[in-house]
């Protein structure tokens, strides 16, 4: 219900003092792609907002891939541990999952700062003379996102690997498969539902991330989440903010649909 209000709002014009005036218009969506010339009111194509969208999507995808590369081996490792140790590992992964994201991002900021632990220790050992700026770059945002959402990747993959039947692995070794081949042909295909779920769970929050880019990206690495907040906060352009939120929703829906499609294909006969 509130979501449909956002949809309605995105088609209205901004009111004079914030809020909205009830006039139907597509201005908010036009504003996304074009820039209005203040003098003759002609529209010219503008990529400013598009750039933010593209950056969000690419950062989101990059984060997902990095999480997968780190998360899959971790999940596999946990799944192959004896049960007692497995629980301890799961607990270790779950704690960051439920602790405050803001505080964790702040911790990341402390490390990445110019006077942060990384830079200071690099200077200490004489590798660099002056601090290399890490904070306020896309790299920092990406690092922060990976750090924030890694548990979302590990847990679903673990859930699907836990049920893995290791007799299949044994059989393939019997058939002279190499370790890599076993991984590629047996383990990964069987863990696919978990991998897909993990990817979607990382991708969706990364796309709409607000805290991480706000703290680690500064003004240079805006993402969609920050853009929306700006429109509702300082710019007081609620329809435009709603329009951006709707576009974000569409992107999320598309990725969800891709995910569901993927699941449906998996269940189709002949692929079992």
């Amino acid at each position: 219900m509130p979501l449909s209000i956002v949809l309605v709002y995105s088609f209205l014009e901004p009111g004079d003092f914030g809020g909205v005036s009830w006039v139907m218009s597509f201005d908010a969506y036009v504003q996304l792609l074009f820039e209005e010339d203040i003098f003759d009111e002609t529209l010219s194509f503008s990529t400013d907002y598009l750039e933010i969208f593209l950056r969000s999507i690419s950062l989101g995808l990059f984060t997902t891939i990095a999480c997968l590369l780190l998360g899959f081996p971790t999940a596999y490792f946990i799944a192959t541990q004896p049960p007692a140790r497995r629980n301890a590992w799961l607990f270790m992964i779950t704690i960051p999952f439920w602790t405050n994201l803001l505080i964790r991002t702040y911790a990341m900021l402390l490390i990445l700062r110019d006077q942060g632990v990384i830079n200071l220790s690099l200077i200490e050992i004489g590798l660099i003379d002056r601090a290399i700026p890490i904070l306020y770059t896309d790299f920092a945002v990406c690092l922060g996102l990976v750090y924030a959402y890694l548990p979302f990747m590990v847990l679903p993959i673990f859930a699907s690997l836990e049920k893995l039947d290791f007799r299949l692995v044994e059989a393939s070794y019997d058939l002279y498969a190499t370790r890599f081949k076993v991984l590629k042909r047996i383990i990964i295909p069987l863990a696919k539902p978990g991998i897909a779920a993990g990817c979607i769970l990382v991708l969706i929050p990364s796309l709409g991330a607000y805290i991480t880019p706000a703290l680690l990206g500064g003004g240079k690495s805006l993402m969609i989440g920050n853009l929306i907040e700006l429109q509702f906060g300082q710019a007081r352009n609620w329809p435009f903010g709603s329009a951006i939120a709707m576009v974000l929703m569409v992107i999320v829906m598309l990725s969800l649909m891709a995910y569901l499609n993927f699941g449906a294909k998996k269940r189709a006969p002949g692929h079992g």
Partner: protein
Amino acid sequence: MVDSTAAPAKKMGKAIDLKYQPGFSQIAWLCIAVLYAPIAVLVLFSFNQNRSVTVWTEFSFDWYVKAMNNEGIRHAAWVSLEVAFIAMVIATIMATMAALVTTRTAPYRGMNMAVGVINQPLMVPEVVTAVATLIFFAIIKQLTGVSGIGYLIAAHTAFCIPFAYMPIRARLEDMDLSLEQAAADLYAPPFKVFRRVTLPLMLPGIMAGAMLAFIVSLDDVIITLFVAGPGETTLPLYILGQIRRGVTPEVNAVSTVFLGLSVILVTFIFLFGKGKK
């Protein structure tokens, strides 16, 4: 090299470890390091005597004392706890009812949709939920003229429900229906069955759900940022404001206390979950 049984492989020098994949354990340890190193640094420097958050000088509790005496922090912590507590109670009650309806009644049309609606906040980016909530409340505010902390509590309740719902539902699905049927067979009226059989059995789920809701409400930044009015600064909002002004060990101290609280709650939930099985 690998033979058809394990024994010949052993004869050749070493048994093959079926589950081993090269490098995976190292990556797992790397993950733990990545997840915990920043937090460790944060906690460490909250005990630093110096103003600096990166150069260690001496151990002290100064920053904790300072944070305790800070009126802003105390107020923010109070608001946070108040909102989280009320939201937890309401969300848990609603989630319990929702879980009962979706597991204990005959499937009805639109039930899947109802489950979808309950879980919808989990699949939508938080910013979008925040925007939706803000606009929704703005309209209500305009129509009724009522303002106050009620909106913030309502917003928190709304997004806490799915988190409370999940463990309660999981618990209900695990439960053996025959106990409830037996009670009904023994002429217990439906309410008595619920109070004497269903409710005690589902209590661990409810407890876990309530604690999750509490943590989620306590941790929330984005939705609070959009919805909170003046004077309704929660602790995370306060911390966010401080961070934007610059880093001080005081923030580290508050964060550490906050972290400690979350860890304790999560540990409880974890133990509850384990006790179940």
